[in-house]
């Protein structure tokens, strides 16, 4: 048994358990919002059950013990012996949080249980035992007071031939609680003579008692595999009859050590954690993350590979005995190759795409908690959960979204009284949308709250010197102000917002993903925050430009316009800077050849081309020699192969095999400003 290395399954266990917890949470929230679907209870129960099973298998005793009690409670709900109320859901939601933390600790090789988890477990135990039996002693809630199960198990003759062995079943029962064999007997139908006996047939029956806070489902689960191969009855032991129980047919002294010991994980509070059988968890968790891919996507890939192989063999066939008359076929083949390659690329990219629903799923819980904390009523609407996003983008977009949702509830939506006074429905609506638009994924967070507080924002901006007192600002500029670093109008810092993390961080995070974030707001009607994200970080659309002998790629998303300047449009300003007039404003000119030190570049502005780029609300003109065309660039990390370079976000390989650097517009703008400041 011990030969199998279970550590290899740990990661899967953690992933699946976390997914199970997510499902539990979602179902709990659905129950909380008044759903009476019995299937929800089953979902919650199943999730808890499989986490417990897995944790026990891998020797995470604390997780198993905790889940075990939660499961007992759930079993009571499932069997309708206990009603569902807000209090119970609160307790179970806290258990979900606690289990998440425990799994996290366990995955890092730390002790799973702490004072909080033990306290919560105590609460669960009290609730379970408090109703199952009139707990006589408060001091020892777990072990003595709870009842157990009387099990009558009679094997049918063919039981052994199914590969099952009562010995193993009983060992499993021992894991659940203290097992007493009251009676073992030979059934009447058994052959009386050895000569007639087929040793492969089983003629035994047992009466067992299992003591401890064990859910009926757990007991039944042990016998899952022998259903139909035995006669089985499982009945609760009446609480009163627990005390005098003494194993009838078994000599207790002999069996005491092996039988009593496994009861410990359930009965004793286990802060002195059992020795962990596996120590490699910390190392295992540092491995790269994995991705689960739908089988349809993999099948599409395999199909595509097949096509590619056919095309390749066709082309090599032409190449073997090439004659000029086959030129047309060659062209055709190359065209097909190109098509295959493109499709293959798309399919491979799709593997990295995951539905945004996995991020959206955390919001019902968040909204519920905030509602309670802030005394507001919020209806959350989720749309477009199936919109797919690159896994990397998905992982990093979670925090900014959480921030925006928090803000919307904390600042945006009013209290029920205020809403009533404003003639609105007392319950505010928060809507999350995700959809494709162009080559982007758009995520919108809209609320029907009060909208941005223009007066407060302007006052704050004046106070911080972002605008001059009395300066005229239009709505777009006001909206832009809230993205300035350290800008917060919250009169008092709540523990939700005002942690010194502002909208500027949200914007920076979104920028890091190659996206943009903006806000539209209408006073009294609400605000809409819109995040636009690229489909993937691995490929960008870029404009290939020439600077001297070098090629630079400017991300298309940052480009406003490209133009050739006439000499009279350029002004020199004090300190050596150059600006030009562009749509009612003066923009600084960044000479890329100077910034990157390129030789043989065009230095006369009127002979080159100026590419106007915008980043963080600032525009600059980049002077390049020429525009060579638009191209999709597969981004290669410069850091991974060389080191980080200011003003460059990565590199790519052009069709002729040469390397082109990708301009980090943000960095270049900053470089330009620093140059200006130094000058």
């Amino acid at each position, binding site marked *: 048994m011990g030969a199998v290395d279970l550590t290899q399954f740990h990661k899967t266990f953690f992933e699946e358990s976390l997914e199970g917890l997510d499902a539990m949470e979602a179902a709990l929230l659905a129950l909380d919002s008044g759903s009476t679907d019995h299937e929800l209870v089953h979902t919650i129960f199943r999730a808890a059950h499989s986490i417990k099973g897995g944790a026990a298998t891998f020797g995470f005793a604390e997780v198993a013990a905790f889940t075990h009690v939660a499961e007992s409670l759930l079993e009571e709900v499932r069997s309708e012996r206990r009603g569902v109320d807000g209090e119970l859901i609160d307790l179970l939601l806290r258990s979900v949080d606690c289990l998440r933390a425990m799994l996290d600790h366990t995955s890092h090789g730390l002790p799973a249980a702490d004072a909080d988890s033990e306290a919560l477990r105590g609460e669960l135990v009290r609730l379970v035992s408090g109703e199952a039996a009139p707990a006589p002693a408060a001091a020892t809630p777990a072990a003595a007071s709870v009842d157990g199960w009387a099990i009558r198990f009679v094997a049918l003759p063919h039981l*052994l031939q199914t590969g099952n062995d009562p010995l193993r079943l009983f060992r499993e029962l021992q894991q659940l609680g203290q097992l007493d064999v009251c009676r073992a007997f030979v059934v009447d139908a058994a052959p009386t003579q050895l000569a007639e006996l087929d040793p492969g047939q089983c003629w*035994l029956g047992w009466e067992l008692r299992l003591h401890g806070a064990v859910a009926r489902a757990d007991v039944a689960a042990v016998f899952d595999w022998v259903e139909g191969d035995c006669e089985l009855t499982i009945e609760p032991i009446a609480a009163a009859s627990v005390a005098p129980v003494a194993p009838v047919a078994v000599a207790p002294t002999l069996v005491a050590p092996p039988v009593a010991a496994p009861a410990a994980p359930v009965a004793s509070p286990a802060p002195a954690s059992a020795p962990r059988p596996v120590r490699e968890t910390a190392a295992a968790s540092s491995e790269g993350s994995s991705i689960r891919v739908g089988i349809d996507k993999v099948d599409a890939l395999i199909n595509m590979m097949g096509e590619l192989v056919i095309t390749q063999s066709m082309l090599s066939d032409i190449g073997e005995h090439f004659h000029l008359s086959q030129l047309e076929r060659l062209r055709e083949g190359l065209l097909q190759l190109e098509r295959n390659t493109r499709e293959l690329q798309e399919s491979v990219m799709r593997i990295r795409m995951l539905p945004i629903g996995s991020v959206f799923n955390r919001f019902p819980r968040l909204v519920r908690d905030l509602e309670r904390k802030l005394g507001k009523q919020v209806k959350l609407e989720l749309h477009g959960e199936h919109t797919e996003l690159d896994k990397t983008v998905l992982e990093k977009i979670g925090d900014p979204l959480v921030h925006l949702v928090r803000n919307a509830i904390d600042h945006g939506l009013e209290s029920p009284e205020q809403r009533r006074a404003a003639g609105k429905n007392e319950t505010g609506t928060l809507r999350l949308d995700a959809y494709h638009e162009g080559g982007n994924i758009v995520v919108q967070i809209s609320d029907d709250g009060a909208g941005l507080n223009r007066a407060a924002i302007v006052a704050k901006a004046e106070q911080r010197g972002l605008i001059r007192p009395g300066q005229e600002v239009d709505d777009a500029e006001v909206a832009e102000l809230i993205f300035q670093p350290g800008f917060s109008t919250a009169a008092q810092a709540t523990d939700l917002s005002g942690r010194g993390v502002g909208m500027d961080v949200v914007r920076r995070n979104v920028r890091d993903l190659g996206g943009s974030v903006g806000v539209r707001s209408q006073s009294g009607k609400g605000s809409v925050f819109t995040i636009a994200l690229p489909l993937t970080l691995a490929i960008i659309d870029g404009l290939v430009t020439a600077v001297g002998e070098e090629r630079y790629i400017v991300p298309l998303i940052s480009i406003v316009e490209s133009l050739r300047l006439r000499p009279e449009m350029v002004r020199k300003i004090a300190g050596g800077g150059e600006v030009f007039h562009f749509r009612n404003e003066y923009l600084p000119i960044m000479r890329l050849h100077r910034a990157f030190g390129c030789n043989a570049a065009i230095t006369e502005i009127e002979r080159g081309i100026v590419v106007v780029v915008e980043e963080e609300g600032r525009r600059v003109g980049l002077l390049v020699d020429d525009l060579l065309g638009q191209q999709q660039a597969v981004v290669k990390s410069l850091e991974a192969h060389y080191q980080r370079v200011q003003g460059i976000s990565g590199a790519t390989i052009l069709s002729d095999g040469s390397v082109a650097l990708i301009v980090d517009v943000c960095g270049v703008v900053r470089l330009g400003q620093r140059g200006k400041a130094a000058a």
Partner: protein
Amino acid sequence: MGGKRAAKNKQPPAAADGAAVVCLPADCRLAVQMALKEQLQQVLQHGDIVIDAQALERVDTAALQLLVLLRRELEHNGGALAWRGTNEVLHEAAALLGLEQSLNLPTATSA
């Protein structure tokens, strides 16, 4: 090892008092039960049977059931089942299945 060989012995060795001794093989599970049964059948007429479980490493319900039924038949015929060299494996399995009394196992793990 010795147990395995013993399980195949046609002529069972006799104990000092004349009872037949049957050694259980190391792996005494379902697969060898038919052979074990035949062996036991052969010595059933001896009167008393002594089971030597010294070599026992793995055992299952089928094996214990066979021994329980053996004892039942033996006692019915006026014979007795005794043990020599019981070990932890046997005691653990018998205790778990609640068959210690039915098997007439000694109450302590002594060889």
